[in-house]
């Protein structure tokens, strides 16, 4: 089977971009994308977990007995999630407060377990890291773009990294706050999915 490293990496960015193409990992996608900043933070945390759990699972793929593989994957994934949680508490505490409960919930994120089961358990470490990195970056981009749409319409600003927004629409814009609430997440995601399908069809 001929595999190319670049192909495994780039499939996560468009062909198999998690929330839009696979419609996986919707819990954090809908819950934390109130702002671009939250989306990027959540995406990077998930990317870290994806890359390292893919790497470790791929290295151990011939040692892990098939019958307890899911338990082993969960132990590995939970370890990295806890590391992310501790590091975020130590260095980016305000962001940790905003993402709150959704950081520990990465453990049960379908994307992470899905890549472990579908890819890392059957491929070499190098390919697994490329796959994890691609899917992770694709996930980050999805969350950031969904966050951008919701934040721009919902509060008229774009916030990339803490503090003041890098872009604001000005006083003439009346924020449509429905978009930053939970139902707005579904509407925004649905519209973006429709847009993706429209482009993909051609």
């Amino acid at each position: 089977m001929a595999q190319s490293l670049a192909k495994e990496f780039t499939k996560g960015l468009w062909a198999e971009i998690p929330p839009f193409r696979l419609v996986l990992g919707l819990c954090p996608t809908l819950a934390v994308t109130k702002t671009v900043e939250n989306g990027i933070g959540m995406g990077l945390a998930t990317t870290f977990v994806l890359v390292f759990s893919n790497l470790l699972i791929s290295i151990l793929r011939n040692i892990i007995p098939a019958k307890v593989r899911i338990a082993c994957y969960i132990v590995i994934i939970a370890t990295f999630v806890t590391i992310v949680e501790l590091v975020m508490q130590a260095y980016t505490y305000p962001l940790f407060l905003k993402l709150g409960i959704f950081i520990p919930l990465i453990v049960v994120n379908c994307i992470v377990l899905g890549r472990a089961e579908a890819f890392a358990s059957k491929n070499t470490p190098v390919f697994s890291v490329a796959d994890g990195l691609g899917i992770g970056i694709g996930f980050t981009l999805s969350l950031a773009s969904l966050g951008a749409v919701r934040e721009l319409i919902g509060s008229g600003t774009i916030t990339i990294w803490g503090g003041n927004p890098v872009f604001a629409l000005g006083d003439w814009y009346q924020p449509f706050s429905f978009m930053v609430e939970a139902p707005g997440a579904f509407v925004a995601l649905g519209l973006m999915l429709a847009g993706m399908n429209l482009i993909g069809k051609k």
Partner: protein
Amino acid sequence: MREMISMIVVLTLLASVSGGLLAAVKSGTELRIEEQILKFQKAPAIESLFTDVTNEPLKERFNIETQERTLQIFPAKLQDGSTAIAFETFGKGGYGGDIGLMVAINLDSDKLVGARVTTHAETPGLGSRAKDDPSFVSQFSGKPIDADLALKSDNGTIDAISGATVTSRAVARAAIQAQELYSKLKPEIQKQIQ
């Protein structure tokens, strides 16, 4: 049989390596996390509890050893000349683990100045209102130290947040724990302040 043993061995090894790694990361980040909690959780709580202090409670903090843990005390000199202290207790039994409550007590009048929720992992929009909605914790303000701070449904005096009784009960538990600690430690605290 061999498969059985290999399953047990692999899982045990994985779990113990994971445990060791996490213990190392935790001890490596512990100090920094404590600093961050002081800066982003305790400091805002203390600032909103003591609005008219003439000293700096954060800088003058000191520790008192109790049987269970080290208690961090923040002393404050109020504008009217009285002295107050603030310290944090943890109420067991919230939905997402223990709930931290910063309780301020006036040393001269033995009355609660107020209380603020600090660290918690309650459900956003439900239990988290204990922290975000000030009307719940404001019930503690001005209560004497021997007041019954249990919830009304437990024959006490505190109204629970509707829809978040479990969270409210954990906060009330933290407040009661603060009362007990204060009654026990008051002489020692006064000695430390002077």
